[in-house]
């Protein structure tokens, strides 16, 4: 996709307390999302990684501190204007019964439409490009509920692409997919990153994160433990510190990125 200026404004969390109701998951959290990078947020269950992503996506409002987009508080900006800068693929989006692929992708155009500005040729073109980029053009008139999990995830990514935002946030985009479809989705993410977008994703698989991310944020108990390029921070020490998992790190023979090999401790204990 060539449409739209793909320049990401800086997105950052500054000294924020984030949580649900009165339960704070993170306190005094500061995170900077580097421009033009594929950032992956990592950490054990309940470490606050999805909470951080929700705060970045303005789904959660910090009870203290702030989330800044282009240097301004994200909650003080009109939500439709934010939606033209920042796209979000949540963990479990809902496909309405009977909706077709093309209709679902078209809903990504919402922030670009208005009461008087009806469906345009531009909208049509962007939707076609988004479907081509995710390789789902031939599924356009199919019902979303007929598709496989992998196809469906590509449809959702196409919908977010139709939003034409320089920034993409993806909350566990590979969960519930088999390994082939996980790689397919991550390859697609890498392609979108190469085209100039800034990506932020929450992933569970350490090795996939190390292979695809250009910037890692490792979290534990609501705090950022380590941050940086995978080659620098994926070490046996950090993995132990973040996941409590003794391991060895070797070079991935395919990509040269760090590969985490958990120690055989569990078997020794039996």
């Amino acid at each position, binding site marked *: 996709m060539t449409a739209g200026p793909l320049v990401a404004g800086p997105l950052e969390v500054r000294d924020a307390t984030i949580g649900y109701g009165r339960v704070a998951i993170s306190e005094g959290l500061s995170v900077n999302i580097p421009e033009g990078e594929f950032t992956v947020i990592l950490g054990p269950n309940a470490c606050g990684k999805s909470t951080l992503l929700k705060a970045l996506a303005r789904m959660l409002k910090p009870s203290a501190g702030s989330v800044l987009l282009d240097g301004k508080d994200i909650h003080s900006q009109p*939500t439709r204007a934010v939606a033209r800068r920042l796209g979000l693929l949540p963990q479990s989006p809902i496909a309405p019964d009977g909706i077709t692929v093309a209709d679902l992708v078209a809903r990504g155009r919402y922030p670009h439409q208005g009461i008087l500005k009806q469906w345009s040729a531009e909208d049509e073109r962007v939707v076609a490009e988004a479907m081509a980029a995710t390789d789902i053009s031939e599924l356009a008139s199919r019902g979303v509920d007929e598709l496989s999990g992998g196809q469906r995830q590509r449809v959702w990514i196409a919908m977010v692409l139709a939003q034409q935002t320089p920034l993409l946030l993806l909350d566990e985009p590979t969960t519930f997919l088999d390994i082939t479809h996980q790689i397919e989705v991550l390859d697609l993410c890498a392609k979108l990153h190469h085209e100039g977008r800034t990506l932020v994703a929450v992933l569970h698989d350490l090795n996939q994160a190390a292979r695809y991310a250009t910037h890692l944020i490792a979290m534990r108990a609501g705090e950022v433990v380590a941050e940086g390029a995978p080659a620098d921070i994926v070490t046996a020490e950090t993995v132990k510190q973040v996941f409590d998992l003794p391991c060895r790190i070797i070079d991935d023979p395919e990509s040269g990125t760090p590969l985490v090999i958990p120690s055989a401790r569990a078997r020794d204990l039996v």
Partner: protein
Amino acid sequence: MSTAQSAREQAPELDAPRDGGSAPPSRTGRRILGLLVLVALMAALAILSVAVGSRAMDLGQVWEGLTDAGSESYPVVTELRLPRTVLGLAAGAALGLAGALMQAMTRNPLADPGLLGVNTGAAAAVVTASFFIGSFGFAQTIVFAFIGAAAASVAVYLIAGAAGATPARLALAGAAVTAAGYAYVSAVQLMDAATLDQMRFWSVGSLVNAHVAPMLPVVLLIGIAAVGGVLLARPLNALALGDATATGLGVDPRVLRVAGIVAITVLAGTATAVCGPIVFVGLVVPHVVRAFTGPDQNWVLPYSMLSGAVFLIAADVLGRVIARPAEVQVGIVCAVAGGPFFLYLVSRRKVARL
């Protein structure tokens, strides 16, 4: 996503029978044609509604009644049947649209405006007023009913957590308020036979007294709320993808829910105040409509509005014909005709999995 597996297993058998394979433009054409058919049907039924009654008229007499102040049919047409027809159409449109809005807003196919407490709120207000004031006219009934409907939906919204309201909490709060409201209404009616009498016709849903209703305010209220409601189509399309996705697309679900509840309350509250609680229109009509239009609210909302008007006025005409010279209340006809149809629809849709 959790249903991905089952969807994949079902995919082969679903491939063949779907008509979704046809090009999108033909679907749009079909939907525009459908709108025209509905408008034509509505016009025909409106004429029929003016012509049919304890004294039947032919088309010539209907025309005279509408245009010639000196004619024999003029008083019947302008004072009784025209107001009844106009209010029937307005109330039907309001209920159809309110039902579609309610289902879209809660993402719950079983939701209807009654789930917002509109019906019980109206009934509770009418029995309360009747208990304290004694008997009063139909115009006052409308005012009390409207106030009660509005108060109940505000109560449901607040109990559901106001800005924190989720579809599930709205449904639960609505069910709780409805249950409590019904208990209250029954209790008052048991204590005081006069209120039971006052409530009898109103509570089954009837257009008999429509000619006493303040026509202009009713039509105006419904008209304004209908325009507002239809304008919610696009954000509702975003909300259909889940609250999180909607937020990502630039829709604030909390703001949208407040706007939706206001529109539904005015639409259903006005309709309920005028003709009593008629439940099946708001529940069934959007279902039939979605089976034809698909899930796009830009079509579902206007279609539900027109279909609601057609359904209610058809039921009212039928009610005036089947037991002549007596009348069967429109609420009863709707329930008797709507119930089995709804069952048929549910069983058929299960097979087609539309």
